[in-house]
């Protein structure tokens, strides 16, 4: 139980993120949800780093930089799609694209 409380925040973030990736139809929301999942993992690492081991904080930095780059890339996809279709609803864009 103690460990669940210790890592609870990280797990909740992961779950919210995971749910959001599937649940939302809006591409920007999906991107944010994926980033939340990753942030959950980073929080998990920081809670491990409290023991004084250097590896978790190093891994957290690297995960954070990868998350930043991929989130920006996904965000740019969203901007590109919004400029073209004036919407970010995935289903709507797909429908217009197949016409």
């Amino acid at each position, binding site marked *: 139980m103690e460990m669940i409380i210790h890592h609870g925040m990280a797990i909740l973030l*992961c779950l919210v993120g*995971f749910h959001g*990736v599937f649940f939302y139809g809006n*591409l920007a929301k*999906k*991107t944010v949800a*994926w980033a939340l*999942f*990753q942030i959950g*993992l980073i929080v*998990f*690492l920081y809670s*491990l780093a409290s023991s004084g*081991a250097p*590896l*978790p904080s190093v*891994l957290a930095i*690297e*995960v954070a930089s*990868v998350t930043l780059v*991929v989130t920006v*890339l*996904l965000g740019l*996809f*969203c901007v*590109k*799609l919004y400029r*073209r279709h004036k919407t970010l609803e*995935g289903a709507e*864009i*797909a429908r217009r*694209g*197949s016409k």
Partner: protein
Amino acid sequence: MREHLPILILAVPLAGSGLTLLVGFFSYRLSRWITYGALILTFLLVWNSFPKLLSEGPWHYSLGGWAPPWGIELLVTPFSAFLALVLLSLALITFYYLGHFGLIAGLLKSRESLGGSLLLVLVSSLLAQLFVRDGFTLYLFLEMSLVAAVGLHLCVARNIWLDGFYFLLGGSLGPSLLLAGFFFLYASTGTTHLDDILAQLFIAKNFSMAITAGILLTATWGWHFFFPSPIFFTRLLNQTPPFILGFFSSILVRVAAYLFFILLFFVLNVPGMSQPFWLTALEYLLAVFFFIDFIYAAKQKDFLNSVAYLSVAQLGFLFVGFILGNKSALTGVLMELLSQTLVVAGLFIAVGVLSLKPTGAHPISKLAGLGRHDFSAALVLVIFAFSIVGFPPTGGFFGKFYIVQGILEKHDWVLLIAVGATIVFNLVTAARFTWLLFEHRKASSFHASIPFSAKAPLLVLALTVLLLGVFNQEVVHNFIEPALPKAFTNLPVPNVPFLGKQVE
């Protein structure tokens, strides 16, 4: 320099990628040759590692001189080197089609250098996945391969922004789950080195952690294993040139299957562990789920969709081998993996070569009478089809032969029925397909003549599938046996199974 071959194999395509991009600014042609050069040089480097690999066994290489688990280790086994050669050959073939048939592949000249550069990054990241022995590094290269793959998609396809987004998002969720699995393993063992994780799990007898992390690590590959199923990737299939789809379906997916094998049998296979009944049932369902795709493949009227279903369905054989987990089955899995990589790439390339257009419909009915019009092209298709069935002397036959042997050794009648029914079904479908290829029809069905330069790589792939079968003993002895879990390498057959169900 020879002692640094493992890192050079990864560094050369990466360096070539930068050079291709730079030179592409001045000359497209030179940049194309640099891409070829980097791929061929990497091929030769892998080839040069074989004398040491075959005489001394797996090659452990500590990066920066730091011994594992403190540093990062590359482990080149004869099998991973062999798979690397297949990967590089397919990358060469893909780039050949991109370059020489740019119009068919949908690649603009101005994008060729960028395409070459991204292909080299993708190749380097996939090679790293084959060799690296650290969970976190594996994550980084997995993410890198996805980003490069998205780039390649953007390079060759038109109006693919939405699908590119889904490809990157869906693909990245897999590595995130992998990361979650490895972080839990790290929190419980204090290490990210794959072999060390197994040792620490065994010392702590932490079976529940192995099972739960195993489920997360299995979920990682969900996206990879369903690529390019027409159910989930309909738009992508219609918009991406078949050459690129072939490279991704054969290499991206089969490297993922190899990593899945490594994780199951070299990281989570803790001796003494037993898995719950519900998990076993789930594994059986998963295998059957993949086999059902063979029925969908047979029902398709579009050749590309049918090949896409076949690519996914064949993974069922690998899952059966993983469930059984004995020596014969795992030998069959690795043999089947090699054969599937070649066959899937070949079939997608055949779709591209036979229709000679980047996108759109590829009706199977157009193949009627192909054998009378172009015998060699039809023969190649027949070889691929019968390798999927498991007909001698193809590589696919020996893969399935060892898997069935594994089933019989374990007396698993449920799997025997599933595999047997699948093979019979595929035999009937392949016979009907062959009949279609050689049936006597009026010339309305197939007109276009296929240039030899377009067919040559296909012929090479078909020949390799046959050679894999003919020299199966050598392949098993030299490449597959040293890649099996340690319990199997000095035999005779202990029954160490999927997630360590039972250990003798």
